Each structure stands twice: as C-alpha cells, then as structure tokens.
C-alpha cells in the first residue's frame, strides 16, 4: 500500500479532525467519555469545527439527523464507548430506516482489551451492523484518513445512510509520521445508478396508454434534490400526486395536483386515487406499509413503475412491472426532456380533484377545547407555509402532516420509518443549526417530549431559537386512539395521571414559555411565534382528540374511516370488523 509521509507527527485524534475538516464538516454533535478522551482533547482548541454538547447520546444522534435531513449534509456524531455507543442505537436505526447520511464515531477500549469485557466495552460494530450502511473498526492509526473519507463518502452517496466508525482509544492516541493512501477504495460500491433509457421510455409508453395515472412522491425526491424535476414532470403531464410523509413539500400543498399525504392517515382523495389508478409511478418511496397498508391488494388494477436508487427496494413489497434503478434526478431529467407522449387524463384528473374538494382534511371548529388541527393551520398562515416543521411521533405528527401547508423540499423533518418518540426536540435543534435563518417549529406530544426534553438545555446555551409547540393531551394520544378504536376503549397505560409542570420545566431551562388553553384567544396568542427566541408553547387540547381519517392497519386504502364530505353525503362508516383487528 502507498504510504504518505506527514510533515509533522500526528495523533489519530488529530487525523480524525483534520480529515473531517477537509471533507467540509463544520459541526459535530457529541458527548465525551473515557474512550473518547483523546479525541475530545484534540477537539479542545481545534479550529473550524464546532462541537455541540448534547445532554444524552440519543439526543446527539437526532440532532445530527435533524441537521442532515434538513440540509442534505452529513451529520457527524461523536460518542464514547459502551454506554455512550449503546445510547446511540435508536438514533442510528432511525437514520437507517429514513436513509439519513450520518457518520457516527464511537469510542472503543484499547485494542488489547477488545473482546475481554473491559470497562465500558460493548461490541458496537456487532450491535450496529444491521442498522448501518457500513461499519468500520479502525485498527491502524495510519488508516484513519482513508477510513474517515470512505465512510463519509458512503454515508452521503447512493442511498444515503448511517456509517459507524469504532475508534479504539489507543488508535486515537498513537502518533504517526506517515499514513496509508487515503484514496477511497470501494471497488464494488455503486455510488450512482444511471437510468436505463429503455426502461424510462417504457415508463412513458405506459403513460401514453393509461387513463388514470398517479405519481407517488417519496422522501427520495428530497435526497436526490429532484424537486424541480418532479414538479416539471407533473406539470408537463398533469398527473395527480400522492405524497408520502417524507415526501411532503416536494410538491406544494397549494399545487392543485397535490392530493396530500396517502396511507393510514392520508387524505380521502389520495387513498381513493391509489385504489382507482390504472398506473402508479413511484418516485423514491419504498412502499412503506403506512402507505400501502395491505400489499396483497395494493394497486390491484394498476401497472406499477418504481424508480429508486436502491435495487433492493424494487419489487420488495409491491409487484412492479416497470422497475428502474436510478438516481431520481437523472431519471426525472430524462423524462422531462423526452418528447411528450400523447395523453388524455382530463376526466381522471377532474375526478380525483373533485374528491379533494369533497373530502378535505377537516374537523369541527366549535369546541370547548383548542383544536390542534386549527392551531396548526394558524401556524401555517403565520409562517406563510415556509417554516421548517419538525415533529415528534404520535397524533400531533399526523396533524402536522395533514394541516401544515408545505411548499419546500426538506421542510418536514420527522421520524418516518422508525417512528421514534423523542426524535423531535433534538432534531429541531439540528435543523435550526443547519438553517439559522429559518423559523423552526417543533410539534411534540407530552409523551415524546419527556423522552428527550433534557436537550432543551442547548437552546439557551447555543442560542437556538426554536419554537417548541407542546401539544398536550395528557396521554399517549396515538396509543390511546388505537385502544379506543381497536381495544374496546381499554386505555391501558396510555393516560398520564401525573405530569410535570411543563411551564416550570421550561423556566428551569431559562426559555420563554406560555400555556394556551382558550380556543377563543388562541389565534392571537399564537402570533408570538414570530419572536426570534427559544420558547415552549404548551397547547392544552382535549384528551378525546383523534386523528382522522384512518385506514386501519391491513385494510385496503379505500376502507378509510372517519371521512367527512363537504357536500353533506354520508360519511363512510368504515371497514369490516375483521379488517379493524388485522
């Protein structure tokens, strides 16, 4: 192997930091500990990279995720061995399921102690192997520049994902005067997949013979930076669009062709269109079961085209007649610039759009309690649909998906694949650090808030003026809703009898706070969101609030419950008992 002489001797830790800096990393999220002391010592006084001290390693990873998801850059995390590393597992798995580019450095005990149950030793590579795109354990200090460069490259190219680097303490301490060739050496890794032109022309040919086409816009559109191309394609052919949770914003809500989110808590129009379509073109969604619900009956009458950068996604869940492995941006560019095929979708488009107006997301407005849906609508107005919206997981997440008027890519930062409670507070911090000039609003439930609220300590410390909107229903709302719907209203362990005083908690962290309980004054009070300081806005809502409509797990997309029609026709009362319990 080629060796490169260094001008001065450098420690492993210095090599880590310098390589990161050369790669363009300017911020890392972390938490120190014994095995990482050498690296932390090197961080002290190192110029050009800001270190954000989390209050829990799970927080550090979600912060890096929020940063990466909202910016497209690689999020970098540094934690110590053993408990530090195991605390990152949830965040790594979260990043894996949502294809978030992350580089996670975990400390490790010295090489001589590995495998001997040393103090604070855990088999981190073993633990994280199934939830990372790749993992390394660095055995030789001279390999650090290559491995860090390679890992960074792996994290953000192809299908992005988390990459783990386990760094034994002695490897980071040793000083070397020469390093191994830092060139990336991944002969079998395909960073980009190029669209097959024949397959793409098949996609268009099928479009010319279909009468009821539908586009699914997934999170992959964000990752491929393909928003413009997607919008151009849709406009060119006037095809209606169903967004996935992670695809919201890629086509603005106000675009008439946007039917809204599809799937479990998706719109009536989207779910009906999924059932009625004769041609489904999926751009960068992995047909998650929250969208597809029942794969055996999904798209029964439709030809399916699926474009994804990861071949393993094609045909994994839904039978696909036109599978295309490609970078989405490239594929869409070719599709948009290709000669227009003749189409006639007028009748179909009119029909699905009518559904959109017949059954929009809706809720009764007169109420003794604040309606969370209405609060989100107002926030949408006050922020002109332009804020970065971060959510935790639960009912509030779905309301935020349904009622905020998204218009930009990477605008909704949420835990889609894992559904990780505790994601919200730290992810909002990361998003704000990536976009200091944007209004970042977090919607979080009282349950998930209590999982990572220690990260509030960062708001003042680092001047991170996010707005935490705590939607308090005094319960684990989403769990409670399932119990109410499918478990004979037995609210087992889903209602909080005792809760902390969240106002005092915010006070303890020194941030502005207020509690809103009156529906009549809410609209005025919410205007406080325009102030550029960190704040906690607690909104008290009814404990009985439900997220509707709903496609029960395993039901067909048109077996949708809780739809209300604006023209006064009967609401669909729903699926069969059998389906409810599926």
């Amino acid at each position, binding site marked *: 192997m080629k060796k490169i002489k260094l001008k001065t001797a450098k420690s492993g830790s210095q090599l880590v930091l310098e390589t990161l800096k050369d790669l363009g990393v300017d911020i890392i999220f972390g938490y120190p500990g014994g095995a990482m002391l050498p690296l932390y010592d090197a961080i002290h006084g190192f110029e050009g990279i800001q270190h954000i001290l989390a209050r829990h390693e799970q927080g550090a990873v979600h912060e890096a995720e929020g940063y990466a998801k909202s910016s497209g850059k690689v999020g970098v995390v540094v934690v110590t061995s053993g408990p530090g590393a195991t605390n990152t597992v949830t965040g790594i798995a979260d990043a894996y399921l949502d294809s978030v580019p992350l580089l996670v450095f975990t400390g490790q005990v010295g090489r001589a102690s590995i495998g001997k149950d040393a103090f604070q030793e855990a088999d981190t*590579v073993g633990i994280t192997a199934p939830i990372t795109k790749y993992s390394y354990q660095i055995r030789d200090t001279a390999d650090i520049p290559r491995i860090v460069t390679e890992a960074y490259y792996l994290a953000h190219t192809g299908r992005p994902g988390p990459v783990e680097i386990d760094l034994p303490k002695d490897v980071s301490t040793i000083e070397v005067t020469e390093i191994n060739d830092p060139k990336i050496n991944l*002969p079998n890794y395909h960073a980009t997949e190029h669209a097959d032109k024949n397959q793409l022309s098949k996609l268009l040919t099928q479009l010319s013979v279909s009468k009821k086409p539908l586009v699914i816009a997934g999170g992959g559109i964000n990752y491929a930076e393909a928003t413009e191309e997607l919008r151009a394609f849709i406009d060119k052919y006037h095809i209606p669009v169903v967004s996935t949770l992670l695809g919201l914003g890629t086509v603005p809500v106000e675009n008439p062709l946007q039917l809204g989110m599809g799937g479990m808590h998706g719109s009536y129009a989207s779910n009906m269109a999924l059932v009625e379509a004769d041609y489904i073109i999926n751009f960068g969604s992995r047909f998650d079961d929250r969208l597809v619900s029942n794969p055996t009956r999904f798209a029964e009458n439709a030809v399916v085209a699926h474009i994804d950068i*990861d071949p393993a996604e094609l*045909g994994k869940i839904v039978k696909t007649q036109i599978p295309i492995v490609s970078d989405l941006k490239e594929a869409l560019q070719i599709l948009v610039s290709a000669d227009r095929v003749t189409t006639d979708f007028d009748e179909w488009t009119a029909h699905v759009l009518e559904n959109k107006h017949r059954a929009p997301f809706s809720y009764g407005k007169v109420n003794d309690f604040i309606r969370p849906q209405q609060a989100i609508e107002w926030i949408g107005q006050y922020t002109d649909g332009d804020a970065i919206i971060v959510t935790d997981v639960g009912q509030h997440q779905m309301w935020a998906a349904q009622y905020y008027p998204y218009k930009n890519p990477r605008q909704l930062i949420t835990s889609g694949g894992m559904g990780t409670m505790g994601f919200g507070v730290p992810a909002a911090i990361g998003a704000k650090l990536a976009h200091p000039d944007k209004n970042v609003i977090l919607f979080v439930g009282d349950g998930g808030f209590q999982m990572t609220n220690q990260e509030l300590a960062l708001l003042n410390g680092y001047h991170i003026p996010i707005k935490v909107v705590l939607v308090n229903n005094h319960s684990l709302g989403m769990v409670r809703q399932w119990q109410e719907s499918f478990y004979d209203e037995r609210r087992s362990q889903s209602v909080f009898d005792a809760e902390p005083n969240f106002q005092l908690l915010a006070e303890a962290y020194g941030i502005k706070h207020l509690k809103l309980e009156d529906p009549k004054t809410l609209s005025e009070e919410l205007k406080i969101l325009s102030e550029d300081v960190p704040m906690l806005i607690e909104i008290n809502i009814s404990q009985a609030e439900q997220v509707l409509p709903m496609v029960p797990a395993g039901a067909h997309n048109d077996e949708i419950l809780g739809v209300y029609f604006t023209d006064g026709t009967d609401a669909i009362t729903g699926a069969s008992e059998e389906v409810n319990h599926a």
Partner: protein
Amino acid sequence: MRRMIIARLHNVTGILNRFTAVLNRRQVNIISISAGVTENQELTHTTFVVEVDSLGEIEQIIKQLNRLIDVIEVADITDLPHVAREVVLIKVSAPPERRAEIFTMIDPFRVNVVDVNRENVTIQLTGDSDKIEALIDLLIPYGIIRMARTGSAGFERG
C-alpha cells in the same frame, strides 16, 4: 425450495456475519455454508444452500445481499449448469463380522477409508449432495457414530 447461492466477498473481518445476518433477518434457513479464500487472497468464495418459499424471495434476498459493501457478486446458480462438491466424513460402526458387507455396499461410491479401528471405520466421500445423501442412507442401518459435512462448494460451469 432449496437454492444454491454463491458469493464472492471481500475477505474482511465480519463479512460472513453481515452476510448471514441478512438471511437471518429474513428468517431463511441455511442448510449449508462453505467458505474459503480464492485465487485472489483478498477474496472469499462462499457457497450457501438455503431453503426459501419462492423464487421471488430469493431474488429479493440476493438484491439485499448485493447491497452489502463487501459483497462483490452474489448469484443463484441452482438452475444454471454448475459444479458443486461436498466432503463428508462418516464414522460408522463396523465390527469385524459386518465389515466386509459394509465395504461391498459402499464400493460403488468410490469412497476413501481414512481411519480404521477394531469397532468402526471412518469413510470419506467427495461428491454432490445427492450422492452424499445416498451414502448416508445406506450407512444409517449400520449405525453412524459421528458425521461431519463440509457443505457444498461450487460455481457455474464454463
């Protein structure tokens, strides 16, 4: 159904672990594994025989295996012309009075006798899995004391 999968892998620590973890996650039963370095010291050739429910399943699994960074190539060679060999060692009870009978029985298999003592013999056979299974069936009635199989090693012909 049984499928024979071959793979060329980077010979790095943990790769077999990652490879089998994909099968494990999909709850695929591994019937046999063999692995060893190739003409290129940096590569390992592996042969897996697995049990799956459908061709679609194995196709999907191969895509997931291909996604591993250290996997160079994976293929299902079951339906392709291929060569595959396995070695088995069988220690069978062979008291002097039955020994001649056993040897006549197994003679057509062209086995090697690799160890002998008063009460038993150890037989080595190389062949495809069918042949090995046929031999095992034949020896069961005599009392197999111990048996070790390497699992198939193979690749496409031509």
